[in-house]
């Protein structure tokens, strides 16, 4: 076999070069078998770096490329494309991570880091030599979307898709659309009437023949993959199977039910924010009200800030303060989280309106004691440095938002992850906020993290933008790193079928022989089936036993040489 491998070691500015002696690794790479060229770049991913790799492929007649740099998660597509542009099949590219796996964790041991980088490169080169070109296939996309959840984010997502001409099924588990917005009066800080907002979106949706609303329904099964999902919707008239190209999760949030905090359940005067909203909707205007924020949040066990509660508190405190001139509205808080400009303005207006703000600390929380028809709230105010007693007709607890009870079930159905609090985990917290790592499944609204209505709306639109891309493109590329079965070796035992988390394998009859068969479009290339197979009949393209064995051999060889 004659292959010509090019090896490119990245400095990543100082990220790698501060720990790894890049030039030493380059010199080492030149000694490895099949390496026809080795070089280094300050930033391999910059236009200059990619250009130099492409030039080198031509000049040195390279047919394999190894880049030792950062992580394939963000950068592999970039280098694969550079290879393709220079005329090499993109699966003849091998990525070695010497940043996360080496320079960052061994920042203080430069000598050892350099040795480790050499070994990692030797392994990459050994694998690269055995890489085979692969071809990607294309699959069609069903031009229909399913949106799970009929709260404001789901409604807006569906409305945007429909507006873009995409057939959309909206699945709502209750019989009313609008979610939590149905339970509140106005939306802060703008003061928009919540139910009117919902009504406008619903009207727009219902006016389109492309909309299919499933009320009192839930998703009971999801099969398939981007472009061709099959979503089973369990409704009043039994199950319906809906083929869909993309799925948006907008299952929303629910209010934390206090477990006796501040006399909740004991004193009828102690209620939650949503209960206050219902009172406000009935036209009640309580005059002596104490709001307590961070009830059940920002404390051990539920550490997070629920983002929306302060602004809901401000909005309601201001409304009550304005409602009667002799009202006495007090807000007991730890920090007022009115980020941004509209919310901060609301905070200023609320405090200018006469609402009194008192600050408490987690170590000395307020107490609520009964006083006949009323209650007294006794609080140590950090600003005044004294204990204050506040009489109240009503104590309103600003409690955090939680993921809905069935988010675990939804997560399992769609095979998408959740964080430790049960909120859905997006593909990347910074740059992929409305996508899941699973292709074709998107997330918006408070199911990801508590957000206000305005944020729900733009996230719903954002999820619709993402879902519309494959649907409008009409095709998706199926990546080539999938498992394949050698029917000669396969005993049709079914172990791989059971092991596959993506239901991508089935046992089929092929010319009278029963053997496992992989549906490439559905296979994610996780390799679980390869490990499950007793007969060595399943292998994974790009990660064959031969390639992995060569990597181990290279590591052993490099280690022996190093110790000599």
């Amino acid at each position, binding site marked *: 076999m004659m292959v010509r491998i090019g090896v490119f070691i990245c400095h*990543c*500015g*100082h*990220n790698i070069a501060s720990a790894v002696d890049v030039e030493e690794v380059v010199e080492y790479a030149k000694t490895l078998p099949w390496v026809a060229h080795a070089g280094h770049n*300050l*930033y391999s*991913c*910059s*236009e*200059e770096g*990619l*250009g130099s790799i492409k030039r080198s492929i031509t000049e040195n007649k390279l047919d394999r490329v190894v880049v030792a740099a*950062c992580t394939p998660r*963000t*950068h592999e597509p*970039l280098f694969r494309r550079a290879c393709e542009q220079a005329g090499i099949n993109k699966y003849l590219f091998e990525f070695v991570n010497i940043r996360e796996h080496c320079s960052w964790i061994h920042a203080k041991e430069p000598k050892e880091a350099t040795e480790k980088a050499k070994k990692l490169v030797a392994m990459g080169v050994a694998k690269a030599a055995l890489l085979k070109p692969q071809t990607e296939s294309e699959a069609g996309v069903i031009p229909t979307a399913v949106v799970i959840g009929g709260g404001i984010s789901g409604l807006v997502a569906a409305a*945007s898709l429909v*507006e*873009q*001409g995409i057939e959309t099924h909206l699945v709502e588990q209750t019989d009313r659309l609008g979610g939590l917005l149905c339970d509140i009066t106005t*939306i802060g800080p703008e003061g928009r009437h919540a139910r009117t*907002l919902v009504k*406008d979106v619903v009207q727009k949706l219902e006016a389109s023949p492309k909309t299919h609303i499933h009320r009192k329904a839930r998703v009971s099964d999801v099969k398939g993959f981007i472009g061709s999902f099959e979503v089973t919707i369990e409704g009043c008239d039994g199950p319906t199977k809906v083929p869909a190209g993309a799925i948006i999760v907008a299952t929303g949030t629910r209010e934390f039910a206090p477990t006796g905090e501040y006399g909740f359940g004991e004193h009828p005067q102690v209620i939650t924010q949503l209960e206050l909203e219902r009172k406000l909707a009935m036209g009640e205007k309580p005059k002596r009200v104490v709001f307590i924020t961070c009830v059940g949040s920002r404390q051990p066990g539920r550490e*997070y*800030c629920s*983002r929306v509660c302060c602004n809901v508190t401000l909005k309601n405190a201001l409304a009550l303060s304005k409602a009667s001139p002799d009202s006495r509205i007090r807000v007991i808080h730890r*920090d*007022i*989280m*009115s*980020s*941004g*400009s*509209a*919310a*901060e*303005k609301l905070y*200023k207006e609320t405090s200018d309106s006469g609402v009194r703000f008192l600050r408490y600390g987690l170590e000395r929380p307020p107490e609520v004691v009964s006083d006949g028809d009323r209650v007294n709230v006794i609080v140590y105010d*950090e600003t*005044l*440095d004294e204990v204050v007693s506040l009489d109240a007709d009503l104590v309103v607890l600003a409690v955090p938002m939680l993921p809905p009870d069935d988010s675990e079930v939804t997560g399992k159905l769609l095979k998408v992850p959740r964080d430790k609090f049960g*909120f859905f985990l997006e593909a990347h*917290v*910074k*740059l992929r*906020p409305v996508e899941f790592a699973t292709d074709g499944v998107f997330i*918006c609204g408070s199911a*990801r*993290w508590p957000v206000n*209505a*305005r*944020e729900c*709306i*733009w996230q719903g*639109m954002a*999820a619709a*933008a993402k879902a*519309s*891309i494959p649907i*409008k493109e009409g095709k998706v590329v199926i990546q080539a790193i999938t498992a394949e079965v050698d029917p000669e070796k396969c005993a049709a035992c079914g172990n791989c079928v059971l092991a596959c988390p993506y239901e991508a394998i089935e046992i089929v009859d092929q010319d009278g022989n029963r053997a496992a068969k992989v549906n490439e479009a559905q296979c994610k290339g996780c390799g679980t089936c390869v490990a499950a197979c007793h007969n060595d009949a399943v292998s994974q393209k790009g990660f064959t036993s031969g390639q992995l064995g060569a990597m181990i051999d290279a590591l052993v060889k490099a280690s022996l040489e190093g110790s000599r």
Partner: protein
Amino acid sequence: MEEVESNMRRVVVIGGGIAGIQASLDLADRGFEVHLVEKSPSIGGHMAQLDKTFPTNDCSMCILSPKMIMCADHANIKLHAYSEIEEVSGNFPEFKVTIKEKARYVDVKKCTGCGDCIAKCPVKVPWEFEEGLVKRKAVYLPFPQAVPRKVTIDGDHCRTIQGKKCGVCKKICQAGAIDYEQEDSIVELDAACIIVAIGFELMDASVMSQYGLGVCKDVVTSLQLERILSASGPTGGHLTRHSDNMEPKKLAFIQCVGSRDAHMHGYCSSVCCMYATKESILAREHAPGLEATIFYMDMRATGKGFQEFVSRAKQNYGVRYIRSRPANVQLPAGGNGVLVNYETSGLSGESVTEEFDMLVLCPALIPSKDAGKLAEILGIDLDEDGFIDMPDMARPVDTSRKGVLACGFVSGPIDIPDSVSQASAAAARAAELVDGGDR
């Protein structure tokens, strides 16, 4: 669905920061022709300047640069870097947009970005990307990962352009790319929608003279600290203070410098609590044993993982959070470091003067200074703080004018993920407007 004419599927995106980049990529993937207009020589915006991002401490440039390259490579995106919007006429869906591509004095088709000219250029000017901490040449590449990777001659400082004797870069350039005669060029195009994503800038914190920026050498802005902490920054990631190049042992941050302040900017800039927490953690990682103190008003940690990030800063990195807005700072007798005068909280609070080796100001983030002029060109409203007015919460990316959309910080203070989702929302809205019946 009926096919719309090709110019109907064209969108102009103004601003090449993360919001503009994301809006462009989504629209381009969605089959629209995108013209991305960026005023500086490279796309990337402020995110390119950041060292890490909160709350995961992911390397900022590392996650941004693939998106920048995708923008440059995308068949549906035409990049107009170093360009400005001159004029916009017409209405949705037939805007006529005039773009001025400013003279770089470099033939971008010939320039290879090799940097030979930069090495030889004799003129030095403060480097914008490095927040003025070091100097660049009059011919320059804004930063190593710049997209497009083409040098630019800064005509205000180039000797030859200013009529003095030089011509060194032209002599050294083997590609023959230097062109002192180059003039601004004008591109006119029709577009269905316009997306504004011109971002923010830092308020000039030296106007608040009580905090000593520009007077005390060891007072820096938070963005300057980002560059100092960055491995690719002027100190190679080594944390030093300006007065004597010593590694600081005590570092202080003052929050809300010019924000949440009735005399300056009333609003909360929204990201400072978290980036100060991040910079404190990073500073401690760069300078073991360092003690970081954050003077704050309310600790606003409202995003995913933010509260835990603050807890980690306190518990694992010993970051001290003091609820207080310092009155002023003074230069200590020795001339190094800074004395911070503040009061401890509560009515019984005491006045304290504490010495720090280095002080970081977190200034108000204000709308990009071009927002006013651009709003006038586009015929859209600004709100009282100068951000683009988004009048209808049910249409959170619509400006006051149909077909003109906005996303990112220019429509109000938000962080990176919110800018990204807003950018995708703007892409959706443009697609709705063009494909839908809502004309």
